[in-house]
């Protein structure tokens, strides 16, 4: 049986590579029984969404000095 560490690793990997059939089955079995890892899995995908969105967030929250670089 997969533990939570390994399950979160596979869930993370699934965002970057195609899992093998066996991996998918093992992950699926674990997720079916473990709400915490289900949340991790969903939230890892949320992080991707948030990251994409981050680039279009108004900038003033980070650095006010950027206007300098426009000359």
């Amino acid at each position, binding site marked *: 049986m997969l533990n939570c560490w390994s399950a979160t690793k596979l869930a993370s990997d699934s965002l970057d590579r195609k899992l093998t059939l066996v991996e998918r089955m093992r992950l699926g079995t674990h997720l079916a029984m473990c709400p*915490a890892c289900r*949340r991790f899995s969903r939230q*890892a995908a949320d992080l991707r969404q948030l990251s994409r969105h981050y680039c279009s967030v108004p900038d003033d929250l980070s650095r006010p000095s950027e206007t300098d670089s426009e000359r």
Partner: protein
Amino acid sequence: MLKFAILQLSDPVVAEDAVQEALAGALKNVSTFAGQAAIKTWVFAILKNKIIDTIRQRQKLAQLAPLVSFDGEADDVDTLFDRRGIWKAQNRPTDWGTPEDNVLGRDFWRVFDACLNHLPAQQGKVFMMREFMDMATADICVDAGVSVSNLNVLLHRARLRLRNCLEKHWFQGEKRAC
């Protein structure tokens, strides 16, 4: 934008150049730009290309800057789990609801920013390459000097840590559950 470039290029001077060039390029081509709303996204896209160019150039010159090191690596993501690799009760992910991008305000992005900055340098770098710049695995591996499996390990750790940081500093804010 500058912070983003510095993190990617690990050289403030080169990063500043890249941002400056991106902005200059944007100004020059502003006539080709249509919608107002997404101007930031558009400039960012230009910057991303600049950064990738710079990284590729660097690769070609085989002038690989010393890696940003694996940082003291007392990696605290291990402590999220017990010895058997099961979530410790206090670290179990809780429900975030649906973090709708558009309802998350300024304060959220400030926290997000801080959490991102708290990632160990190499984790932060590969995470941004993957999730912000959408770079291909092969390119990331070459630039960061890691194998594919190593990259997957770094991304796993970055996600665990970033997720935990956001939960502790944002999503859990008011409801300090069990």
